[in-house]
C-alpha cells in the first residue's frame, strides 16, 4: 500500500504529544489541569484520526464521534464534577518521579516491541508501515498508563481519568488494527465510554456526599 497519503512526520509529532498529555493527565495534582490535559489529548486524537482518514473514510465518522464524546462531553462531565469540589487530588500511592520513569520505560518498551514483533500484534500487511507501528506503540503506552493511573491513584476522579486514557489507548489502536471497522461499531464503542464516565461520576458524586471524600481507600464498608 502506498504510504504517501499520510503526513508521516505530522502523525509522529501528534503521537508523541498524545503520550505527553497522558503523562500530564496522570501526574498533575490539580484535577482541573488533569482534565484540561485530557481534553487536549482528545483533540489530538481527533486530529490523528483525521490524518489517518485518507485510507478509510469511516474514520471521518470516527473522528466526529470522538470529537463529541471525548473532546466535548467527557471533559464537560469532568469539569462539572470538579467544579463542585476541591481541585486538589488526594495524594497518590506513587509520586511524580517514579511515574515519569514508568512512562518512559513503557514508551521505549512498546516502541521496540512494535518494531520487532509487529506481525504478532497486528497481523495485517498495512500495519507493517512505520506510521502504524508508531501508532500502535503510542496506543499501547496510553493504554498501560491508563491502567497504571487507575491502580495507583487514590482519588476517584483520577481513576475515571485513568479509565478514559485506557479507552483512548484502545480506540487509537483501532486505527492500526481495524481500519475498516464500520461506523456503527465505532459509534457503539465510543458512546459507551461517555455513558460510563457519566454514570461513574454520578456514583462518585453520591460517594462524596455519603463518605465526605473521593478517596477510594476510604471505601471500606464491604470488606471480606
Amino acid at each position, binding site marked *: 500500500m502506498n504510504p504517501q497519503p499520510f503526513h508521516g512526520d505530522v502523525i509522529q509529532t501528534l503521537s508523541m504529544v498524545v503520550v505527553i498529555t497522558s503523562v500530564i493527565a496522570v501526574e498533575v495534582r490539580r484535577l482541573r489541569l488533569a482534565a484540561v490535559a485530557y481534553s487536549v489529548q482528545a483533540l489530538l486524537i481527533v486530529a490523528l484520526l483525521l490524518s489517518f482518514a485518507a485510507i478509510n473514510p469511516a474514520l471521518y465518522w470516527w473522528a466526529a464521534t470522538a470529537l463529541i464524546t471525548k473532546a466535548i462531553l467527557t471533559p464537560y462531565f469532568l469539569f462539572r464534577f470538579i467544579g463542585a469540589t476541591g481541585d486538589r487530588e488526594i495524594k497518590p500511592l506513587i509520586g511524580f518521579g517514579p511515574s515519569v520513569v514508568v512512562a518512559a520505560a513503557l514508551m521505549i518498551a512498546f516502541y521496540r516491541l512494535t518494531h520487532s514483533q509487529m*506481525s*504478532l*500484534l*497486528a*497481523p*495485517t*500487511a498495512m500495519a507493517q508501515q512505520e506510521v502504524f507501528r508508531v501508532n500502535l506503540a503510542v496506543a499501547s503506552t496510553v*493504554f498501560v498508563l491508563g*491502567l497504571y493511573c*487507575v491502580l495507583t491513584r487514590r482519588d*476517584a476522579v483520577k*481513576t475515571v481519568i485513568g*479509565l478514559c486514557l*485506557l*479507552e483512548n489507548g*484502545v480506540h487509537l*489502536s*483501532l486505527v492500526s*488494527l*481495524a481500519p*475498516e*471497522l*464500520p461506523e*456503527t*461499531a465505532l459509534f*457503539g*464503542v465510543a458512546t*459507551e465510554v461517555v*455513558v*460510563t464516565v457519566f*454514570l*461513574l461520576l*454520578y*456514583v*462518585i458524586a*453520591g*460517594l462524596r456526599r*455519603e*463518605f465526605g471524600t473521593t478517596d*477510594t481507600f476510604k*471505601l471500606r*464498608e*464491604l470488606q*471480606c
Partner: protein
Amino acid sequence: MSDPNATVSSSLPILAFAVPAVAGALVFLGRKLGRLYWQSLAIAGSAAVALAGLLMLPDVVAGRALVSWGEEFRVDGLSALLVLAIGLVGSLTAIYSVRYVAQPGLVSRLGEPAGERRMPVFYGLLLWFIASMAWGCVTNNIIMLYVAVEATTLASGFLVAFYWDRRALEAGYKYLMLLTIGITFALVGCVLIYASAAATGSLAGRQALLISEVRSVAHLIPARTALIAVAFLVIGFGTKAGIAPFHPWLPDAHAEAPTPISVLLSGVMIKMAAYALARTVSIFYPSLPQLTVFLVALGVFTMLLGILAALPQQDLKRLLAYSSVSQIGYVVVGVGLGTYLGCYGGLFHLLNHAFIKALLFMAVGAVIYATGVRRIADLGGLSQRMPMTAACFLVGALAIAGFPPLNGFMSKVTVYLALAQSGLWWAAVAAVLAGVLTMVVMVRAAVAVFWRAAPPDVGEKVVREVPAGMWAPMLALAATCVVLGVFPQLVYPLLDQAAVVLATVGR
C-alpha cells in the same frame, strides 16, 4: 443431521431484545403514570424475551440457525439456550419484584412513600438490562458483542447502587470501574480476532466481523496472535463472568443490589458473560487444543476459591454471591474442556444454575422482606412461619449442592464424567471436593435460617410468609429444579444443539 450451516431468515432474534428495549423506553416516557403501568410493562417486556426464546426452539432444535439483517444477528442452539434462560428468569424476576418493591425500605429508602419517584427508573433500567443481555446473545458481530456486554454493565450499574447508601455506592463504584476496565480488555481481544481474521484474506470486508464466519478461518490465524487474543478475552469476559481471580466485584455488587437485581446478576448476567467467553474463545479450540487444560485449571481454581470464600460468610447474600463464583467455575470447566460431553455438562449446569441461583436469591429476598435481616446469626426458626420459603430454599440448596435427583446433580455428574473421560482426574477430584463443600455451606445456611431455634430478638418479631406474588415464582423455579433433575432428557434436544456449536470432538 442436517447441514450445520443451514439458516432461516427470521425477525425473532431482533424482537428478543427490541421488545424489552422499547418497553424500557416506554417506562421512562410514562414515568408520571402509575406503578401498575411500569410493572405490567416490565412483566410483558421480559415475558416477550421468554416467548421469543420458545419460538426459536423448533428451528434451532432442527439444527437451523435463525438469522436476520444479513447475518448480523444469528441464533443457534447456544444463543437460544441463553435467550430462553434470560427470558424465563427475567419474567419470574419481574413478577417477584411487584410485591418486593412495595415494601418500604427495600427499593425505596426508608421513610419515602414506597419510592414512587424512583420506581420507573428501577423498572426502565431493569428492562434495558434484560434487553442488553438478550442482545449480546443474539448478535453475531464480534465488536457488537463487546458493545452489548458493556451495555449490560451500564444498564445495571445504577441498579447495583440503587439504594444510594454507603454500601451500595461503594459496590456500584467498584462494579462500574472494574467491569469497564475488564471489558476494555475484551475489546482488545475482539479487535485482535477481527484484525487477524481480516488479514487472512479469505473473508471479504465486513464478513470478518461475523463470529460465524471467523470460525471458518480460525485455523489460518497465527497461533501466537490467537493466544494474545484469548488472554485478553479471558481477562475481559472473565471479569464479567466472575472467574477468579477477577471476581472481587461480584460479592459486593450481588449482595448490595436490590434482590430482584441480584437475581438477574447472579442468575443470568454472569452466564451471559460466560457465553460471550465461550463464543469467542471456542473459535480457537480446534487450532489451539492446549487451551482446554488452561481453561479447566482456571475453572477449578474458580470453583474452589469461590466456595472457600463462601464458607465463613455470615451475610446470606454474600454467601450466595460467592457460591455463584464457585458455580461459574463448573461452567468454565465443562465448556473449557471442549469435548461434547464437557460442553453439554457445562451448558446444562449454566441453565440449571440460572434457575437454582434465581430461586435461592428470591428465597433470601423473601427472608429479608419478612424479617429485614440478612445476617445468618440473627436469623433462625423461620420454617414454622415461612414454610413455603423454607421449602423452596431447601430445594435450591440441595440442588446447588448436587443432591440427587435434583437438576444440579445431573449437570455436575455430567461435568465429572466429562473430566474423567478426558483423563483430567485431578480436576474431577477438585470438582467433587467443591461439590461437597457446597453441600456443607448451603445446607448449614438452610438449617441455620429455617430450622435452628430462633435467636431471642427474632422470636419476638411478627414474621409472616411472603405474599403469593413472591412465592409463586419461587415455587415455579423449585418445580423446574425437580423436573429437570428427574427428566433431564427434556432439555436434551436444545442442549445437544448448543453443545455441538462449541464442541470440537467426541459427539
